């Protein structure tokens, strides 16, 4: 009898431990699907692309490994080099312009202007539109034959000329203009949220000290918005690397290949040109570039927030 009791008691004990264990493991169990998604869908496909990029695959993946030949071919290709240059120009200008325009819009709205709600909607509205539609509209606006140029000339400004979209060396700037028009509203919304989080007392203190408002924005508010700025930067950067739809809608990479970007190069080779090995090599290069850009930023942020931050 005693033995039976002992067994019973030990069972009860083990049951309670297993309940606590289960409770402790529950969050991890809930994360398993996500972890699997990351491992299989992201990491797995990345490794698969890496593998394909080392082969001579055309329409279908094959096992004929050719080392780095695809990468060599990639960097001997003038179109790819041009696409990378365009990406750099586009990236720097797009991020800078979005930040500046978005911040200025946020500051403007932060002045407690009348009709704030309406203005906020207007500024944010372009972001709600698909870039295919945006790109098409901008293509019409910038077309020298029947867009803005013709409108100005008909209004009497005969010498008005704005033909960047057909100029080899300037066409990429038109893509920047359209993209900034679309994305700066989002930057404004994020910056405005940041501005609204600034303690009112700081403003009172600076007013007592007689510091001009612009100085407060630049020297006090902006540094306080550091994490917002970093978030915006990361958001915009991912937008830069994957830029594709705007170029396709606006210029199709033209005139010639003047406004080509890496994502378009990759898509062209992946499907139209049945060369998945070269396309994979291109996407691996893009991934390396993203890592090279984002990693230092993440390390820096981790350091400043004492290692346990929210990066």
């Amino acid at each position, binding site marked *: 009898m005693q033995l039976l009791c002992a067994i019973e008691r030990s069972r009860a004990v083990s049951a309670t431990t297993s309940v606590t264990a289960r409770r402790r493991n529950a969050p991890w169990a809930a994360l398993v699907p996500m972890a699997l998604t990351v491992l299989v869908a992201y990491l797995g496909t990345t490794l698969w692309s890496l593998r394909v990029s080392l082969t001579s695959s055309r329409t279908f993946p094959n096992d004929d490994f050719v080392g780095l030949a695809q990468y060599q071919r990639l960097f001997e290709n003038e179109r790819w080099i041009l696409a990378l240059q365009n990406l750099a120009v586009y990236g720097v200008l797009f991020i800078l312009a979005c930040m500046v325009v978005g911040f200025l819009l946020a500051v403007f709205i932060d002045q407690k202007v009348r009709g704030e709600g309406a203005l906020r909607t207007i500024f944010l509205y372009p972001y709600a539109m698909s870039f295919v539609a945006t790109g098409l509209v901008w293509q019409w606006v910038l077309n020298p034959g029947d867009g803005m140029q013709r409108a100005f000339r008909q209004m009497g400004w005969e010498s008005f000329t704005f*033909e960047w979209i*057909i100029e080899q060396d300037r066409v990429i700037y038109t893509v920047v203009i359209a993209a900034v028009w679309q994305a700066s509203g989002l930057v404004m919304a994020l910056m405005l949220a940041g501005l609204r989080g600034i303690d009112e007392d700081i403003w009172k203190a600076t007013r007592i000290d007689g510091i001009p408002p612009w100085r407060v924005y630049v020297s006090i508010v902006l540094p306080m918005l550091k994490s917002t700025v970093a978030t915006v930067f990361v958001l915009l950067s991912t937008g830069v690397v994957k830029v594709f739809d705007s170029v396709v809608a606006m210029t199709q990479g*033209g*005139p010639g290949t003047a406004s080509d970007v890496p994502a378009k190069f990759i898509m062209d080779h992946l499907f139209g*040109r049945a060369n998945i090995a070269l396309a994979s090599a291109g996407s691996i290069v893009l991934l390396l570039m993203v890592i090279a850009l984002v990693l230092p930023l993440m390390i820096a942020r981790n350091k400043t927030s004492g290692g346990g931050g929210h990066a």
Partner: protein
Amino acid sequence: MSLKKLCAVAIAAAIPLSIPAIANAQGAKAEVIHWWTSGGESAAVKTLADAYRSAGGIWVDTAVALGEQARSVAINRIVGGNPSTAAQFNTSKQFLDLVEQGMLNPIDEVALRDGWDKFLPETIINAVKVKGHYYAAPVNIHMPAWIWTSKAAFKQAGIAAEPRTMDELFAALDKLKAAGLVPLAHGGQSWQDNIVFTAVLTNVGGRDLYLKVLRDRDAKAIQSEAFKSVLLTFKRLQGYVDKGSPGRNWNDATAMLIAGKAGVQFMGDWAKGEFALAHKEAGRDYGCIAGFGPAAPYIIQGDVLVFPKTSNAEQIKAQKLLATVVTAPATQVAFSAKKGSIPIRTDVDSSKMDICAQQGIAIMKDKTRQLGNGEIYLNPDQNGALSDILTNYWNRNIPVEKVQRDIAAALRN
């Protein structure tokens, strides 16, 4: 299956198959993936569906806009193990990888029974026949390098006759320019630049140079003076386009001819669809020139149906019926009349087709004038690389010698 066995099967099958085959295929369900989605194209594909239905089959239409998209859907479904009965490809090397991976069913039985070798142009046979087996049923022939002229614009510029040589064409372009019209209506997209190049290569370079460059990828021919003058003529044409040209769609360029604002366009015979929509008539409102001189090559491109591998007897029956129906003379004429193309065979009644199509069919009867387009000789990758170089040359000031070097390098591998 060995070739001998296959031939035996094919011959055995051929005897009773000719007419009863159609009756046997009652209710054979065929799903066809294609990208015939525009107005004229969907009217054309409807003629195929109707013909297939009246042969007793059930047509299931899977239209996917844009060729690239449609082809990748077809390939993904083959790889994923759920292939369609048939899929549209261009008459080219696009489906060669599928053949090499053993992912397509050959349709030798139909081809041998109907005697495809007897009526198909050699260029098409070379594209659909791989290592002795037929892997695709040709649907139509498009000629991408027609020269279209606007009679209204020509009249306004005081040009009496249609140009008959390249020099006369340039003279006409100069007159159009002097009259304040857009001489050359061109859509500055790389594939359209490529069409202009193809037209110049056939009309200035001629058949031999064409084959040496695109089929043999002969570096010596690419570096030759003859090819240099082709490139220079191509570049010279660029001087006749308007500023709105970059990025323009081909049909917008055709619209300029229809409105009489522009004089000349290089474009495939699908442009006839645009003229027809605007109620313009060939010969009265617009002119069509297949090439200069009686020996000018006629470029062949077009569409085919391929038949993904399956062991399902019903599906194989449907595939054979499809191959039979789409190549039949009556279907051929009905389809091409709507599509703006010409039939794959010249033994058809062309009297109801427009004068441009009749001109094309007449030229096709001369085998020495038939040539494939770049896609037939080059794989998609080489073709793409060539197109990048040409579109850059069209748009930028690049020394012609560098272009020759670049082309030779791009076609080497």
